[in-house]
């Protein structure tokens, strides 16, 4: 059952979800992003298709993707996505200190000694944490370590994450209770 008390928009469930959204509810609660998007059914499938591809497994690897998602969410101040992707990042093998560094709670150098990953984070920071042009030195540094198609892929991940960040923040989507409890137990809430 969704916690509808916090959300600014009605979160649909299996009994209220439109026909074309039913497939997402047949396995149980699909989470508040799907439950909110289902109120505009013609957007649900294309939006999830885009987000699923952008955030799911890709050529660049799951570690780089989670790094982009969590860093972007932290820069955007999205509590929902920070919680959800702190849990996912830990699950895919990021250390607690890496997670804290991405969330801005530790100096980046402490969590990421590798120049290659710091170059990628520099690119992510320039996209998600700033407005206006991306400086040449950030691009050059990123290109020294990553192929252009890697940066295209990670940029799509950053863009899709920013959409989710603003969507979840604007509508005050609630973090699942089990995620919050887990993060609290691990001292990562």
């Amino acid at each position, binding site marked *: 059952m969704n916690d509808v008390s916090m959300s600014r928009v009605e979160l*649909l469930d299996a009994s*209220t*979800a*439109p*026909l*074309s959204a039913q497939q997402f509810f047949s396995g149980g609660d699909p989470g508040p992003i799907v439950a909110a998007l289902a*109120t*505009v*059914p*013609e957007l649900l499938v294309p939006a999830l298709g885009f987000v699923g591809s952008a955030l799911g497994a890709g050529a660049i690897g799951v570690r780089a993707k989670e790094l982009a998602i969590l860093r972007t969410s932290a820069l955007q101040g999205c509590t929902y996505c920070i919680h959800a992707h702190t849990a996912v990042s830990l699950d895919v093998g990021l250390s607690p200190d890496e997670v804290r560094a991405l969330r801005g709670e530790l100096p980046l150098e402490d969590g990421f000694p590798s120049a290659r990953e710091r170059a990628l984070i520099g690119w992510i920071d320039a996209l998600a944490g700033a407005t206006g042009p991306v400086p040449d030195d950030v691009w050059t540094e990123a290109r020294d370590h990553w192929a252009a198609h890697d940066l295209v892929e990670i940029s799509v991940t950053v863009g899709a994450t920013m959409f989710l960040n603003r969507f979840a923040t604007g509508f005050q989507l609630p973090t699942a209770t089990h995620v919050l409890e887990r993060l609290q137990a691990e001292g990562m809430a």
Partner: protein
Amino acid sequence: MTDVEERIAHGPIADAVRSGVLPGRVWLYSNYHCNLACSYCLTESSPRSERRELTAEQMIAIAEQSKDLGFTGVGITGGEPFLLPWLTDTVLDMVEFLPVLLLNNGTLFAGDRLERAARLAHPDIALQISLDSHLADINDMARGPENFAKVVASVPRLIERGVRVRIATTTGGPLDSSHLDPLRALVASWGVPPDDHIVRPIVRRGRADEFGLGVQAIARDIPSELCITADGAFWGSFGPTVSNGRLDTDLLLTRTILPVSVPANALLAAISGMPEGADATLGIR
């Protein structure tokens, strides 16, 4: 290309309508408020309901685009459409594109309103008026005081003025019950042909669900007509019901209503793969 070929719509919607996969009539909920508050109302309509009106411009555009896509008619329902002062003019604009079936409760045809409705005397416009029993007290139990008297006064007046009238009877009993014979006779006495007297069950949605009335129906039991409201487009004219003040979204297709191709294609996609339903056996229409 000949004139006739030019007028024939092409495309997947037109093909689906021609082959019977998609019903030809597009329904519009012009508004949700009503001067009555019937016990089985699918939309919990009443004088205090949120109006949720389509605009005249939207309704005309829907008729025009529906024709271009290959639909063959439009139906208007509510709420009570005749509460909209601009309705008559809009229907006359819509019928330039497609035949119009206009559902209403038959209680608003006095004075000026009768003369305005008389302008709807047109071979491609029919007014479908609700009447549930030949007995005033039985009819009025669900539909409210004086409903019977108003309807039996209005129907002959409209027919006299050349307006085509159909009668719709909603019943909680069997559709072929001989109890309905006196009502059929009353309807026939006005010169309404038997085919223009529709008898249909109460569908258990909206206020009917609250009171435990009518037949249960899931999506595939409900005729798959495209139905457009101010809140979006739905599967079937029984889709955009209201329960406990909340619009039911289980049969919502799209929030986009114009261009009509967007919800029409969503409906076609939803129909494909859906097993045959019980709409024929339940008599839902």
